[in-house]
């Protein structure tokens, strides 16, 4: 068993479960508008907070340079997310239909970009996992 795999495998399982739940939540939301709202979004935000705690915990074990680089990525990502979410939340219940149409389009464009970025992050993670697996196999072959 590779040294990293219990931890990494657990995280990869979370990744799969997380994305499966996103699909389920989105489908449910489309079928029943009553579930969309504070509860569903609050639950998703709690998921983000948990993920951030885990990410920060992972960073604390990284070497300082690597940890600092990841922190910069996280800060940049979080700043974008916070600003976009604030803008969307402040306009999402607009009572003017033409403005509400624009707001829906902005929210959908942002969601589309967020998904595209998540996929980018997932692909980077895949490359990193494969590199780690390959390096571990190489190290084992030297023993």
């Amino acid at each position, binding site marked *: 068993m*590779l040294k*990293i795999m219990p931890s*990494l495998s657990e995280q*990869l*399982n979370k*990744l*799969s479960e*997380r*994305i499966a739940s*996103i*699909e389920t939540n*989105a489908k449910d939301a*489309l079928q029943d508008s009553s579930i969309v*709202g504070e509860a569903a*979004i609050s639950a*998703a935000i709690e*998921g*983000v907070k948990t993920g951030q705690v*885990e*990410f920060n915990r*992972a960073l604390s074990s990284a070497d300082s340079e*690597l940890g600092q680089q990841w922190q910069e990525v*996280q800060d940049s*990502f979080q700043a*974008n997310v916070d*600003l*976009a*979410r604030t803008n969307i939340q402040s306009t*999402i*219940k607009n009572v003017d*239909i033409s403005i509400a*149409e624009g707001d*829906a389009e902005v*929210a*959908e*464009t942002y*969601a589309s*970009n*967020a*998904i*595209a*970025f*998540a*996929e*980018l*992050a*997932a*692909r980077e*993670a*895949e490359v*990193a*996992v*494969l590199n*780690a697996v*390959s*390096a571990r*196999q*190489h*190290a084992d072959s*030297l023993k």
Partner: protein
Amino acid sequence: MEKLSVQLSNLSERAAGIENRANAARQEGAEKRDAAIASAKADAKAKQEAFNAQVSSANDTARSRWQAVRESFTNNSQKAQEGIKSRKEAVDLRMTKDRVALLEVYAEDAVAFALIAMNEAEIAVLDAIDARLHLEDMENA
């Protein structure tokens, strides 16, 4: 919402496949592992270009924010890869162990960050559904 659904489905397939491909890589010889890594890198690069193209259609403010995030993410990846590459040819067992440890930490961080990005995508999708349903309610009123 079909576009978002399709994108979510693609993301789901990609995420679900990572562990399978990692497990498969462990069973393969070095040559096939290298091919798998090259293929994953090519996919990542293509995705990066697709992301750039997609974000370029956003308004100026949103575009510059996403570009800043993407640049920060790409710079981090490149710096890490450079650090790792410099130790790639190590034949000394201790140096090799150091390199493995570094790669494994980076992989764990990358997966943890991907989880955060996916959680944020979930919120964004829920917000978008909320906004669209609100509009439909107004149109039907």
